[in-house]
């Protein structure tokens, strides 16, 4: 079975690296970018299965990025899991079109479960 590819969009390199290490441990392909404007390009280029999008990325609002993805026919169907240190930001993210939301810091198991859940749904669909 081909590994699922996850794009992590977060300007904090510590988080990006940690998620890459962690998710690779769980058998995911992970690419990380600190630049949210590259998101669409990378989704299409790398054939990304899921985007992990931080809410606050150096001056850019993650929800805007999410909304943009949802408005783009090419990226409309790519699942988005938004994350934030603001643990009550979930509703805003869902409103922007995110499939799910996870508050930082997270339990590894919770994260994997959420990712699998989203991808499973996708598969089921």
């Amino acid at each position, binding site marked *: 079975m081909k590994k699922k590819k996850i794009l992590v969009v977060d300007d*904090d390199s*510590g*988080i990006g*690296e*940690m*998620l890459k*290490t*962690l998710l690779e*441990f769980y058998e995911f392909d992970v690419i990380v970018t600190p630049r949210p404007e590259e998101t669409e390009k990378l989704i299409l280029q790398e054939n990304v299965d899921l985007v992990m999008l931080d809410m*606050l990325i150096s001056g850019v609002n993650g929800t805007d990025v999410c909304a943009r993805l949802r408005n783009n026919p090419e990226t409309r169907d790519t699942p988005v899991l938004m994350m934030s*240190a*603001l*643990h*009550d930001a*979930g*509703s805003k993210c869902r409103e922007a079109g995110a499939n799910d939301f996870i508050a*930082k*810091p*997270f*339990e*590894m*198991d919770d994260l994997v479960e959420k990712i699998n859940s989203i991808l499973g749904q996708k598969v089921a669909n």
Partner: protein
Amino acid sequence: MKSSQVPFKEDPEQIEFAKNILISLHDPVVVVNEEGRILAATERMYGIFKTLPGNLEGEYLVPLLEDKKEPAQLCHLLETLMASQEAVKDFQVVLSSPNLKRHRFSINANRLPQFKGSTAFLLSFTEVNILHKGSIDYRKLLNEVLSEAPGLICTLRGKDHIFELANDKYQALLEYREIIGKSVKEVLPEVENQGFIKMLDGVYNSGKSFIGKEIKLDLKGENGGKSIILDFIYQPIKDVNGKVEGIFVHAIDVTEKVLNRQSLENSEKELRNVIDTVPVIIWITNPQGQGNYLNKEWYEYTGQTRKESLGAGWLQAVHPEDQEIIYRKFIQAHELRKEYYSRFRLRHKNGAYRWVVDRGRPKWTAEGEFEGLIGTVTDVHDDHLKEQVIRENEHRIRSIVDQATVPTAVYTGRGMTIELANDAMINLWGKTREVVGKPLQEALPELEGQPFFDLLDNVFTTGETYWGKEDRVDLMRNGRMETGYYHFTYKPLRNEEGEIIGVLNMGLDVTEMVESKTLLKERERHFKLMADLMPGKVINTDAAGKPIFFNQNWLDYIGLDFHELQEQNWESCIHPSEEQEFKKKWQHSLKTGKNFEMQLRLRDKEGKYLWHLSRKEAVKGEDGKITMWIGISTEIQRLKEEEKRKEDFLKMVSHELKTPVTSIKGYVQLLLNLLDKYKLEIPGNVPLKPSLERIDNQIVRLTRLIAEILDLSRLEENKLELKKEVFDLNAMVEQTIQDIKLTNTQHQMEVFHAHRARVFADKDRIGQVLINFITNAIKYSPDSQHIQIHVLKVGEDKVAVSVRDKGIGIDPKFHKNIFKRFYRIGVESKETYSGFGIGLYLANEIIDRHNGYIEVKSKIGEGSDFSFVLLENQ
């Protein structure tokens, strides 16, 4: 004749009369009186005696003219004159005076008409040496004399009473008819039947004079005639031989006098008639108080006879008990010549004694001589009885007034004499009963300079009642000037005739009320002053929320004056975003009386909205009813901005802290997973796995602390959002405990599901509360590992989650405080119980926002039981 120097006391009128007779005579003539003293003399006479006019008056004629050789002659002449009524003619004497040669004089002497009852004699001297016989015209002389005499004078000659001479007055009386040489009968035919001619005949025939008193004479005249009344004397004129030659008539017109007297008599008579017919008793006394007249009413009333009433006999009709005092008063009035008044019982002829009023006043003659008293006696028996009834009524009224608690006084007369003052009024004045009967001005001199005397005088004058409302009165009470305030009336009192006789004064002490009012005003002023000085915006509304006061700050802020602000409705300057909530909350407060508190933006005069903390508190009266609201709005714009900065900062901090924590946590978990997956053996028994697990636990704790900081700032900003959903409470509890168990293996946690319930709530927040309870239970139970969690039904529709430990417990006095921000019970070991002290505060806020509540049961040393109660979703 005596020649001793008896003082000369002749009537001046008689001297005047004598002088008048001589005034136009040129011959030496002298008039002497009966004593032979000179009354008057002509200038020639003075010439003879070489003396000045006036020096002869009062001198005795005889010694003066005494010729040492022939004095007896003169004396004889005078004696002859005195002794008879006859005239003496050509009595020859020789007289000498100190400077004169001896002269022979012929004296004609005549008796003058009587004047005021006195007789005088006229002596005319003629020097014989130069005497030419018949040259002296006696008649002419007499005529001259008589023409000057007062009264009506004429002489009649012969038996037919022929008018020989008549003075001017006499002729005037007869309207200057031709009379001389005619008989009385001819001249005055009208008097023939009036008896005068008979009288003249009588005198002529008898030689005796006749005196007529107040005889009426009717005369015919050109103007219809007239009547006069005369006093007159008919005196016979005799020749040297004593034969009657004619009659000397001297009459005085007394018509006026008689008529006056008659009219006086008539009026007196009339008066007596009147007095006798009036239905009151009238009495008249003489100066000694003797009752010389009582009208017939007296006799009819008392049944006394005239004889019985004479002198002081009338007193017998007076009641024996009253007699003495009445008589004394009566006599005293006469002695003092003053008015007399008394009231006594008089015996009616039917035998009953009746009350009468006796009044008298002095009578004076035209000359101012006291004549006695004239008075009346009036039966007032019925009135007296009425008066007695009135007096009894008055007494009753007085006693009612006396006992009344309302201060009451009655002043009489313009002098405002205190007629009546009850104890309440005396007490109000701070005086004693002694003031009653004194004029107000004397009783309360301290009122001088205050407006009351003028007010009273005005009431007395105009009859208009004066109402004093909260009037200030300064009274000398118990030796000290005290200021009081009174409601009072000055009401005019009138008698039956409607005349004002006094003033009724009723008062009410309202000092306390006025003072408290003044105090209240003072307080209000203070309040306003304070309110104006306060930096906040102070509003004062009535119980219904209508503004009655804005302090200066408010007005300055909004740029309007009070009336403008009131008209505009200050609520319109609330920011539209807060307006609805404000109205809701304010209405709620107005209804319930609960304090109001809200943060809202208010528009200033430039249209800028600034944040304010608005608080309002109800002011309640003694009855617990709201009397008004006092509100203060404090500008918190800077605070708000600070808070915003703080929140932004905290958000940033927590975000920034969480990022590395997330990273650390990820790696720790990776390491743990790696250890599990590869069963790595660490040499030297290094406890790698437990260490990593502890790191993970600490990260969870750190995470929670970071989250709490953020939550707190949001709570304060009212931004804590609740994501409510319906969930299974039992399952949530179970899950939470499982999670805790993962990180805490030391404590045993038992769950008892006595009740199963679903709730509509924020699952994460409720979980947060439960975690807080459990971590507290763990934290404060260092020596006990048993924790019980119960899910219980409370009441009809509520569910409780209770966390019980056997830890150190909390003193009940701290139970309230533990929900306060940053509150931590003073504990001995700081390390043991770490934390910010905001966990329970947050828990309380969260449950409160779910309309639930938290309960604490705890005792020191016995552990605690914390439970939260939520509404079941049914």
